[in-house]
């Protein structure tokens, strides 16, 4: 590893000890993307004593990385000795559940016995929020105790009239239950009051089955729904390489006055992977809002475009720590790609 690479790596590891929880969470997220076992110690340290957002992100990152060290930390976390032994406390259940899930990603079911209390009791909200990730686990006997908790009946009956965030998660989960009932449920959500639920429904419908009827339903949503968020999400879902429509929609919103819309446009751009949009993303590296700069960095990283020297220098000095961390990850990925190609 060169001295420059070492500095980038050190920056990411230092990010796990930053004073701001969101920065620590982002450091963990970036390390999870890099999936390098050298990060396991720093991430494991986050589980011993940290804010819940950072902690759960570190759990996921350790799950992506896998290996002996990560497994040890995750097993301990599944019992979560660092908080009150009382239910409902600061995501106590969620973090423990996430740790078991992260172990199962690595075919390790040893965490399941540590959450017997959660499997046996009525803590269903946690299962809804991690529901999609749980349902993505292969349908094996090992995963069954967890997968079987998230049933269509639970989702449709218990959480039918909930707040938009839960409704969105339930809608996402329905994609994993083939059948007309699931489709009806998802199609209903295409008319939900919340634009975010409508976007989640579009994604869920195409994940359920990319049939002509479902594609048509999302096409109708795209025509009918004028909110930028739904436009961007639906256009990205329907996009075929070379099709100019999604490119046009991204360009319409990438300069929006709302920073969240600009950022969503960059996320859509990243999923399109159209080289013609590379310059549009690069232009947003200088956006006034740090979250938009962060999304621009991640969009270019997703498009496998290496940072130019001046971009790299400017971004690593960005006044926002999260942008600088994303830039460090981007630079490491680009360097790794060169090494592999070499």
């Amino acid at each position, binding site marked *: 590893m060169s001295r420059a690479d070492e500095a980038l790596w050190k920056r990411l590891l230092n990010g796990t000890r930053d004073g701001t929880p969101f920065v620590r969470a982002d450091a963990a997220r970036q390390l999870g993307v890099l999936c390098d076992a050298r990060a396991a110690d720093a991430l494991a340290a986050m589980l011993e*004593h940290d804010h819940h957002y950072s902690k759960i992100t570190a759990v996921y990152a350790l799950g992506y990385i896998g290996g002996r060290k990560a497994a040890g930390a995750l097993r301990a976390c599944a019992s979560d000795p660092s908080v009150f032994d009382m239910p409902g406390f600061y995501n106590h259940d969620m973090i423990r559940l996430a740790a078991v899930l992260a172990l199962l990603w690595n075919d390790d079911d040893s965490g399941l016995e540590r959450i017997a209390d959660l499997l046996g009791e009525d803590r269903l909200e946690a299962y809804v929020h991690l529901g999609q990730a749980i349902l993505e686990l292969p349908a094996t006997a090992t995963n069954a105790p967890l997968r079987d908790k998230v049933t269509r009946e639970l989702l449709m009956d218990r959480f039918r009239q909930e707040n938009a965030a839960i409704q969105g998660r339930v809608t996402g989960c329905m994609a994993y239950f083939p059948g007309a009932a699931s489709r009806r449920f998802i199609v209903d959500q295409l008319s939900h009051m919340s634009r975010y639920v409508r976007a989640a429904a579009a994604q869920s419908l195409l994940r359920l089955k990319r049939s002509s009827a479902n594609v048509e339903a999302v096409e109708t949503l795209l025509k009918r729904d004028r909110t930028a968020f739904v436009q961007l999400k639906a256009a990205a879902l329907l996009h075929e390489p070379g099709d100019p429509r999604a490119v046009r929609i991204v360009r319409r919103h990438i300069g929006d006055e709302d920073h969240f819309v600009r950022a969503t446009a960059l996320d859509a751009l990243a999923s399109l992977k159209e080289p013609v949009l590379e310059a549009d993303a690069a232009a947003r590296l200088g956006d006034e809002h740090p979250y938009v700069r962060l999304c621009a960095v991640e969009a270019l990283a997703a498009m496998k475009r290496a940072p130019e020297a001046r971009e790299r220098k400017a971004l690593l000095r960005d006044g926002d720590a999260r942008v600088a961390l994303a830039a460090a990850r981007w630079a490491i990925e680009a360097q790794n790609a060169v090494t592999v190609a070499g």
Partner: protein
Amino acid sequence: MSERHPLHAGFAKVNITPTEPQGLNLFGMPRQWPGARGVLDDLHARAMYLACGDSKFLLIVCDTVHPRTTHPHHLAVIEHLAAYGGIPRDRIWIVATHCHSAVGEEGRSNPHLRKVANRYRLTLMEKLRRLGEQVIDGAKPAKLGHGEAPVEDVGTSRRVKLDDGFVITGWGDGPSPPPGARIVGRGEHDPNVGVVMVRGLDDEPLGALVSYNSHVHAYPIVYFTSELAGAVCRGLERRFPGATALHTHGAGGDAALGENLEPQLPDPEAAAGQHRRVMRQMSRRVVDCIEGVVGQMRFSTQGRLTAGQVSPSIWNSVDGKIEEPIWAVAINDVALLGEAREMFVAYAQGLKARSPFRSTFVLGLRHTETGSGNSYFPPDHALEEGGYESKRWYEPGANDRMLDAATKLLTRLHREVSA
């Protein structure tokens, strides 16, 4: 049109800590939690009485999570004080500090604890009655000033937005980010602490009303404690000897205490120590800020006091179409707006921007005649984002309609006091 009259004010407080705390239910804590182990610091009810000629206002702030906990018993107290002081009923407000570590409704099957809780509630009503009489009887010529200033690192927004547009709260049973989610950032927060300071004509501090759009609760704890509200009041009462301080909830439906709070310690005794230390640090910052504001104040010995109420008709998914009451009291160029619900910070900021008064403070969680209404009132964008506070659906534009109605009410009151 109300006339300018010499201002009279009275302040007092009463200790409302349960005398038999062991095992009682701590409100705002999950029902599965064990009952209280004891008392970390005392709970209080504090009162402020203002009178300009025949125009009067009585405010009682209780260390409770919301006034619903004492409904309907406190209606008799209000009835009594209205007759005792010659105060219209709608000018007697009972509001909560939103302290979560206060006495809750006793839902346990333990008959002994139910009796203790009922006894506590009856004693509390007697204390509130006497407290009200005390501030009315003790009112003396006074002068009033007000102002606000920002305080750093105390409050924050508890709503954290993710890249899929949804919001998480990350506490209680609230959700956490699912794998792969990216945090966008927190919602709006108002760092300003507002204060109405009342002194005697000889300059002695009589009392202070603090309004802060935040949330006084930091950690779940197994002891009775008045949380940040009590810590700030104790700090102010030390800084201004002779004064009684009242701390209100403001519009803090989407607020939380500082984002850099240390994690809860596993041992309840150690957690209690940590709670005490954090409250001391945070309250010191608030008190320092208030001291600075008070130093810049201009005081007025004369005043015009007026009050009003509007009730826009608004639909929500639990109550259907109902009249949402908004109360306001204005004295000179400061207005207090009473809301039954936990309004969001953006509501208070919108109101401040539109209000014709120099200072406008929202006092959330005011009592209602029916006992209902102490719940969240999210604006449209929060309903779309979801989250813990957005379980009750409101008709589109409801928050703006409340804002319009409140602004009209304040405009009318401003005309009355500034003639």
